[in-house]
């Protein structure tokens, strides 16, 4: 991505009501966030760009929309929360465990062993959740957060893509 494109993105974020934009491609990842501390006078976006080493040709573009932190909030957020908003609130507490690589996902340390975790299990930071195998390298994926396993999104012994969500963990 060149400077001109970055400038265009900054302007786009600046002019919009969103306050964060994240794009991930094969060779780079870019994140633009507006300054939330002083929404009145200094609401300029901040840009961070850093290379990533992707293990696959195509990575889906990700754009995250977040509700604006400053300025006038949309009218309905003042009202009683709707069912949809309640969902959003609880989803903020959900942590996505993603695959760090392309590989094969294993829920257990061996074909005849019990899975590392099941839905409903309480887990601690650093607990092993699964294995992703790539080129005879068995990678034990440890949890970054403590909480409860809400969903297991991949079947045992299935191929997984880079950054694919493997588990949803409800943080405690």
């Amino acid at each position, binding site marked *: 991505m060149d400077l001109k494109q970055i400038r265009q993105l900054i302007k786009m974020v600046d002019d919009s009501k969103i306050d964060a934009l994240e794009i991930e491609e094969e060779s780079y990842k870019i994140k633009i966030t507006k300054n939330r501390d002083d929404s009145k006078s200094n609401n300029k976006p901040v840009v961070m760009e850093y290379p990533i080493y992707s293990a696959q040709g195509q990575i889906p573009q990700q754009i995250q929309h977040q509700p604006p932190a400053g300025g006038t909030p949309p009218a309905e957020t003042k009202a009683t929360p709707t069912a949809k908003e309640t969902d959003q609130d609880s989803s903020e507490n959900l942590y996505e465990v993603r695959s*760090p690589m392309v*590989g094969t996902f294993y829920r257990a340390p061996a074909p005849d062993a019990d899975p590392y975790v099941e839905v409903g299990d309480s887990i601690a930071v*650093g607990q092993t959740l699964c294995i992703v195998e*790539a*080129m*005879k*390298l*068995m990678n034990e994926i*440890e949890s970054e957060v403590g909480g409860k396993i809400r969903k297991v999104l991949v079947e045992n012994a299935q*191929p997984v893509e880079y950054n694919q969500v493997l588990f949803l963990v409800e943080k405690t």
Partner: protein
Amino acid sequence: MNIDQIKQKLQTNIFGDKLFYYEEVDSTNARTLQLAREGAPEGTVVLTDFQKKGKGRLNRTWFAPKGENLLVSVLLRPEQEITAVQKITLAMANIVLEVLDKHLKSESKTREAHTISLKWPNDVLIDHKKVAGILSESILKEKHIEALVIGFGINLNTPVKQMPDEIKATTISLIDILGKPVNRERFLCELLLLLEKHYTSLERSNYKNVVKQWKKHCPDIGQKIIITTPGGQETGTFQDINKFGYLVYQTDDGIRKELNAGEIRKA
């Protein structure tokens, strides 16, 4: 294993500086992972004369009678990203091949009569039979590598005739080639020295030349192969290794595919 002899011969700076020897252990990889969790430094080496639960990929066992072969694991803590570092499994096969080659050159007058080659991703073969297996395991937090353990099983002094029947046809030992026992301590010191040298340059070069080097020793490229994955089995033609270390093949229906985890054998 004579640990004093190893310490005397070892010319490395950090690899083997912390060396743990067990007469028996469940598996050197499992023990090294445990030491890694307890904070052991990079270069820690775990050595044994016998594994009670020696393992291969997907809980397969690794056959090695007591005190005859090399069973060793090394702890690494790479700084680079996992997607680059994962090619280390290919790099380790390159290194074992180099050690075997050096050893045969110095110990055998008939080195030229033997072929040392690689089978994807990291089996090392002499005369098309497996002489060494490498199993690597890592602990990842998000994309960060907390620890990477490389386990080597190298058939040195168990002749094929003493191997279990089911692997006799596909296995070989260095003693079968040399006709005399291999000094295990010396072999280990050679392995650790090359490992330290190459690992330092791999980390510095971001694992750039691994695939190129690996391909030089793979006779299967262009050949018909059978590919086995959890999804099933199919046949195809081995075309290439891509820059990530994946095996590229074309199915009999003409579809180009990339294999990242699985087994291959000659069709």
